[in-house]
C-alpha cells in the first residue's frame, strides 16, 4: 500500500519530507514494526536549475517552421534568449526554464547550443521532461501569478513529499489506512496520535433517512445510511486531488474524492449514492442465481447466490456489497443530495465474491482483510467535513440509519495473557508493569492481576484473539532486535541418515562415471507416459497452468529423453545425464505411491554400457539385482532390454530406449538407459565388508570358452562357473564374445578367464584340472559346450 508522508504527518509528526535522514529513519522504523517499506519515492523535490520565467515575445525562426525564438525574463529584468520547438506559449505566459548546466531527469545537461550562430541560453520544459506528468505535447505553462525566478516546484505550489510503498501482511488490516500506520508509529515512539486538520464545518440538519432492510445479517454486520444535502458537485480542493493522485487514485469530483479520501485515511470503504435513486430505501440480500448487474467498470456480472447485493426499493441491484457499486449508482453533476453508505461486511464472503468475479477493488481489498467495525461514525463525520470544504452550506441530516447484523464482531473483546508466557516465548524477563507502556498506545488496554493480565482488544485489531497474539505485539513494540540471541543446546548430534549418505555417494559415483545431473519437470502432458511406453494410469493435476503439465510422471525417462533431444538439437550428441527424483504412480488410496527413483541415460551408447554403469553403481552401493531379459519392459528396445529384479520384486529396467520411443521424443541417437527404485536401495545399508587376508600364495589363470545358445544369458554361465570354482576363485571375467565362422548360428562363444588360488598352499595342476572338470559339467547343464 502506498502512503504519503505528509498525510501520515497529519497524525504525527513523524518525519520531515525535506530531511533525507529523517525519512530514512522513518522507513527503517516502519520496516522494524513489520510494515515493510518496499520503496521510497520522493516527489516535489523537482529538478535543480529549472526556474519560472515569463515569456516576453516569441518569434518564428526565419527558415525552420518548427523552431521559435523565445525571449524570457526570469525575474532579473533582463532578457534571455532560447530556441524552442513547441508553439503553445505566448507572450505573458509563465513557463519552466531549464537554465544552463541543468541536469535533466533523462540525463541530458542543458548546454549553450546555438542555431544559426545565435546561442540558446536554456530550454523551456514540458511536464514530461520534468518527470511530473504525462503531457509532453507542449511547454508546461505555470500559473500566471507565479513568482518569477523561483524553482518551478515552488511556483506551482509543489511541496516536498515522500511516498512509501508498504508491503503489508495479511494480519494487519488496520494498517490499510493512514491512521492505522500512524497509530503503530505513534505507539512505537510513545507519542500521542494527533488529529488531522479538520475539514470545514457543516450544518446538522433535520432528520432525513434512507431506510435499510438488512436481510443478510450473517454477511453484513453493519449497514448505515446518512443523508447529506445542499451539496454541489465540483472539483476537490487541490491538496485532496494531489494526495489521491500521489497514491494512485484518479480525482473525480469532490463527492467521490471525499469518499476515497475517507477510505484511505480511516480504512473504511463507503459509497455515496444520489439520494433520489435510493431515497425509498436499500435492501441488502443475497443474489438470486444468475442475477445480473453491471458494475462501475462497465462489466456485466452474473451472480450466484453466495454474492451479496445492495438493492434499491424496487429490488433492483445497485451494487455488489463491499466490492463495487453498480454503473447506475454514480452520482451525476447535478446531484445535490447524497445518501452515504458506510457498512461492514464479513471478510470471507467478500473474498469469495471478489475471487469469483476476478474483481478486486480498493473496497474489497479492505473488507477481505477486515475493516474496523466501529469506525463508521468517524468515517461519516470525516466525509461531511471534507465535503464541506467545497460545499459551505452542506447539511448533514440527523436520522442516520444503523442496522446491525449477526456477523458484526463484538467490540468488547479481551484476552488473558500471562507475563510468564510472554517471557517463556520471547526469552525476556519482563515484569507485569513493563507491559502496559508497550501496549496501551496500540489501543490494547491492560489490567494487571499478578501474573495474569486482562488485555482489552480494540475494534481495529481483529487479528488479536489469543495470548500468543499479544506476545507478538509485545515483541514488536519492544523491538525484535532487542530480544537476545542464544543457541539452543542440541541434545542430538547433527548427522545425515544412512540413506542420505548413500544418496550422496550415489551422486558422486555417477559424476565419476561422467554422468551429469539434470532436473526435468515432474509434470508431463496426459499422453507423455504412453508415448514413452510407460503403461498405467497417472495422477492428474486438476488445475494445471498449461495442458502440457496436467499429469504427474510415473517414470523419469521422458524428462531425460527430452533433455537428450534438447542437447542433440544444440549439437551436443552423446550426453550422459541422470536424475534422482520422485515419481508418483497412483496408489490404492487418494495419495499416489510416491517413491524416489534414479534414471541414467547415456546417449550414443548401447545396452552394455548401461549394464556396466549399473554394475558400477550397484557395487559402490553394495547392492545388486538380477538382469532378467525374459521380461520386456515397456518403452525399451525389445531385444536389448531387461528388468532388474531383487528377489521377486522388479526394482527397475535396463537396456536401450526403443527406437520408436526415441523418435517420438526427438532423439536420433541410440540411448542406453536404466531406471531403478531408490527407496529400497538407499534404505538397506550393507554391513561393512569384513576383511579377508590377501593370500600370498601363487595364482593360476584358467581360460575356458563355451558355446552356448543365444537365448541363455551369459550371466547364468558365469554364475555356474563361479559356483564350480568355489573357494578357489579369485575372479571370473567374460573377456571375449564371438559369433561367426566356427560357431553355429543361434549360439555364441563366451570366453571366461578364471583366476584361481589355494589360500593356504601352492595351487597344483590337479586343483586346476578339478575346477576345469566342474566348470565343464556346470556349463553342460546350461547346454553350453566347451569350445575345442
Amino acid at each position, binding site marked *: 500500500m502506498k502512503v504519503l508522508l505528509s498525510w501520515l504527518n497529519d497524525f504525527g509528526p513523524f518525519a520531515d519530507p525535506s530531511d533525507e535522514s529523517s525519512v530514512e529513519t522513518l522507513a527503517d522504523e516502519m520496516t522494524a514494526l513489520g510494515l515493510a517499506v518496499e520503496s521510497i519515492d520522493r516527489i516535489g523535490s523537482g529538478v535543480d536549475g529549472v526556474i519560472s520565467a515569463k515569456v516576453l515575445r516569441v518569434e518564428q525562426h526565419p527558415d525552420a517552421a518548427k523552431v521559435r525564438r523565445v525571449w524570457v525574463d526570469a525575474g532579473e529584468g533582463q532578457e534571455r534568449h532560447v530556441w524552442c520547438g513547441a508553439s503553445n506559449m505566448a507572450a505573458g505566459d509563465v513557463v519552466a526554464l531549464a537554465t544552463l548546466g541543468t541536469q535533466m531527469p533523462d540525463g541530458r545537461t542543458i548546454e549553450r547550443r546555438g542555431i544559426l550562430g545565435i546561442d540558446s541560453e536554456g530550454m523551456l520544459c514540458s511536464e514530461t521532461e520534468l518527470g511530473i506528468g504525462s503531457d509532453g505535447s507542449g511547454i508546461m505553462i505555470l500559473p500566471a501569478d507565479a513568482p518569477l525566478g523561483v524553482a518551478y516546484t515552488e511556483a506551482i505550489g509543489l511541496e516536498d513529499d515522500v511516498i512509501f510503498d508498504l508491503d503489508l501482511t495479511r494480519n494487519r488490516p488496520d494498517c490499510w489506512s493512514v491512521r492505522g500506520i500512524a497509530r503503530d508509529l505513534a505507539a512505537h515512539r510513545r507519542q500521542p496520535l494527533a488529529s488531522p486538520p479538520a475539514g470545514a464545518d457543516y450544518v446538522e440538519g433535520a432528520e432525513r433517512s434512507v431506510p435499510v432492510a438488512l436481510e443478510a445479517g450473517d454477511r453484513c454486520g453493519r449497514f448505515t445510511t446518512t443523508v447529506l444535502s445542499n451539496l454541489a458537485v465540483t472539483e476537490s480542493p487541490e491538496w485532496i486531488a494531489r494526495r489521491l493522485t500521489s497514491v494512485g487514485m484518479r480525482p473525480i469530483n469532490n463527492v467521490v474524492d471525499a469518499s476515497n479520501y475517507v477510505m484511505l485515511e480511516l480504512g473504511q470503504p463507503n459509497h455515496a449514492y444520489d439520494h433520489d435513486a435510493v431515497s425509498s430505501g436499500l435492501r441488502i440480500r443475497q443474489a438470486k442465481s444468475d442475477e445480473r448487474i453491471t458494475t462501475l467498470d462497465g462489466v456485466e456480472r452474473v451472480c450466484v447466490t453466495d454474492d451479496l447485493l445492495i438493492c434499491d426499493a424496487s429490488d433492483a441491484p445497485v451494487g455488489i456489497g463491499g466490492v463495487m457499486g453498480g454503473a447506475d449508482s454514480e452520482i451525476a453533476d447535478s446531484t445535490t443530495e447524497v445518501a452515504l453508505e458506510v457498512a461492514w461486511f464479513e471478510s470471507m464472503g467478500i473474498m469469495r465474491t471478489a475471487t469469483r468475479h476476478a474483481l478486486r477493488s480498493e473496497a474489497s481489498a479492505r473488507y477481505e482483510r477486515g475493516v474496523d467495525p466501529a469506525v463508521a461514525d468517524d468515517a461519516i463525520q470525516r466525509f461531511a467535513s471534507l465535503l464541506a470544504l467545497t460545499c459551505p452550506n452542506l447539511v448533514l441530516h440527523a436520522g442516520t440509519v444503523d442496522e446491525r447484523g449477526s456477523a458484526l464482531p463484538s467490540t468488547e473483546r479481551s484476552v488473558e495473557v500471562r507475563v510468564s508466557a510472554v517471557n517463556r516465548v520471547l526469552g525476556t524477563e519482563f515484569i507485569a508493569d513493563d507491559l502496559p507502556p508497550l501496549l496501551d498506545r496500540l489501543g490494547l488496554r491492560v489490567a494487571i492481576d499478578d501474573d495474569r493480565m486482562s488485555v482489552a482488544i480494540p475494534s481495529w485489531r481483529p487479528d488479536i484473539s489469543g495470548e500468543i497474539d499479544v506476545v507478538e505485539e509485545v515483541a514488536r513494540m519492544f523491538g525484535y532486535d532487542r530480544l537476545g540471541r542464544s543457541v539452543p543446546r542440541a541434545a542430538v548430534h547433527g548427522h545425515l541418515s544412512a540413506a542420505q549418505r548413500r544418496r550422496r555417494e550415489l551422486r558422486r559415483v555417477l559424476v*565419476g562415471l561422467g554422468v551429469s545431473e539434470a532436473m526435468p519437470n515432474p509434470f508431463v502432458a496426459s499422453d507423455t507416459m504412453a508415448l514413452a511406453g510407460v503403461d498405467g494410469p497417472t495422477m492428474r493435476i486438476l488445475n494445471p497452468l498449461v495442458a502440457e503439465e496436467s499429469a504427474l510422471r510415473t517414470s523419469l525417462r521422458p524428462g531425460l529423453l527430452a533433455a537428450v533431444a534438447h542437447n542433440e538439437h544444440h549439437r551436443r550428441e552423446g550426453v550422459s545425464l541422470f536424475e534422482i527424483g520422485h515419481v508418483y504412480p497412483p496408489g490404492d488410496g487418494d495419495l499416489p505411491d510416491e517413491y524416489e527413483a534414479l534414471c541414467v541415460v547415456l546417449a550414443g551408447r548401447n545396452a552394455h554400457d548401461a549394464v556396466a554403469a549399473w554394475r558400477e553403481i550397484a557395487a559402490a552401493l553394495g547392492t545388486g539385482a538380477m538382469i532378467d531379459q525374459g521380461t520386456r519392459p515397456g518403452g525399451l528396445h525389445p531385444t536389448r532390454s531387461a528388468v532388474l529384479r531383487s528377489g521377486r520384486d522388479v526394482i527397475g529396467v535396463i537396456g536401450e530406449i526403443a527406437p520408436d520411443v526415441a523418435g517420438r521424443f526427438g532423439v536420433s541417437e541410440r540411448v542406453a538407459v536404466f531406471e531403478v527404485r531408490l527407496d529400497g536401495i538407499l534404505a538397506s545399508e550393507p554391513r561393512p565388508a569384513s576383511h579377508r587376508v590377501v593370500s600370498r600364495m601363487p595364482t593360476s589363470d584358467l581360460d575356458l570358452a563355451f558355446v552356448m545358445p543365444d537365448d541363455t544369458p551369459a550371466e547364468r554361465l558365469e554364475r555356474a562357473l563361479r559356483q564350480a570354482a568355489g573357494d578357489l576363485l579369485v575372479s571370473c571375467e567374460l573377456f571375449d564374445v564371438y559369433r561367426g565362422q566356427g560357431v553355429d548360428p543361434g549360439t555364441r562363444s563366451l570366453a571366461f578367464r578364471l583366476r584361481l588360488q589355494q589360500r593356504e598352499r601352492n595351487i597344483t595342476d590337479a586343483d586346476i584340472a578339478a575346477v576345469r572338470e566342474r566348470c565343464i559339467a556346470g556349463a553342460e547343464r546350461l547346454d553350453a559346450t566347451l569350445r575345442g
Partner: protein
Amino acid sequence: MIDDIRSACDEALAAVASAHLDVVDQLHAELLGKRSHLSGMKAKLGSLDAEERRVAGSALNQAMASVSAAIDERRAQAQRAALEARIDAERLDLTEAPPVGRRGHLHLVTQAWEQLEDVFVGLGFTVAEGPEVETDWYNFEALNMGEGHPARGEFDTLFVGRSDNELPGESGILLRTHTSPVQIRAMLAQEPPIHIVAPGRVFRRDTPDATHMPVFHQIEGLVVDRDITMADLAGTIEAFTRAFFGEEFTSRLRPSYFPFTEPSAEFDVRRPDGSWLELGGCGMVHPEVLRAGGLDPEQWSGFAFGFGIDRMAVMRHGVSDIRDMYVNDIRFIEQF
C-alpha cells in the same frame, strides 16, 4: 704363462670393449665360460709347480675378475644406451593430450542443497524428508490454515486427483506448496527434542519467469524442545548466517506474518557492504501447530524457519534467470 694370461686378458678386454651392445649378454659365456680361453688356462695351472701355480693362479683370477668387471660395465652401458634410446623414441608432447571421458556435474540446486545440509548438520540438525504429494491436512490444516483461511489463497496450490473429472481440492490431495508439512510429520513421528531441517521440492501454480518456477526447492528448519525462545531463533539464524555466508555477514529479524508461526519474522542477511538480502521467513511455532503435531504448547515450544534453495544456487553463481537451471542444457550444466 704369466704372459699368456696377460695377453689372453687383454684379448678378452678388447673383445668386451668392441662387443656390440646387442650381444653383451653372451660375453660372459664366451669370455669366462667353460670353453673360454681363460677357463682353459685354468686347467693348465695343474701342470705348474707350486710357486708358479700360486703366481699364475693369482694372475688368472685377477684377469678373470677384470674381464668380468668389464663385462658388467659394458652391460650397464648397454642398458643405459637402450634406456636412452627408448626414452628418445618415446618423446611425447603432453599438450597433445586428447580429452578422456568428461567428468559429470551435479545440478546447481543439488550443490546448494548439500552445502546447506552440511552447514545445518554442523549446527546440530538432522535432515528430514517428506512426500511431495501431500494431503490438505498436512499442507494447510495442521499449519493453522483451516479451510477457508485467507492465507491459503496466497499459495497458488496445484491440486491433484485420480481423474480429470475431479474438482480441484475435492480429494484434499495437492502438491505441497512448502516444506512445512515435514514439520508436522516430524512432530508426530518423534518426541522432542527435535532439531531438523527439511530440504525439498515444492510446487506453486506460478507462471515461470526469471525469478519464479512452478517447481522449486526450499529448506525448512524446526527446533522443538522445552524452553525454546525467540532468542534461540535469532541466535540460530545468526549462527547459520555466519556459517553459510561468512563471518563478515550478520542477520536481523523483522516482524512479519505467517499463520503457522507467532511471533513471525522475516530474516534478512546483511552483506559486508551494508546492503540487505531478504532471505526467508521464520518464527516461533504457533501453539495450534504444536497441538496439531501432538505436542502440548504449555510443555513444549519451538521455532521454525524456511527459505528458497534455488535462489541460493543462482545467487552464488550469478545466474540471472532461474529458468536456465531447468533447461538441462549440458552447456549450462558443465559450467559448475
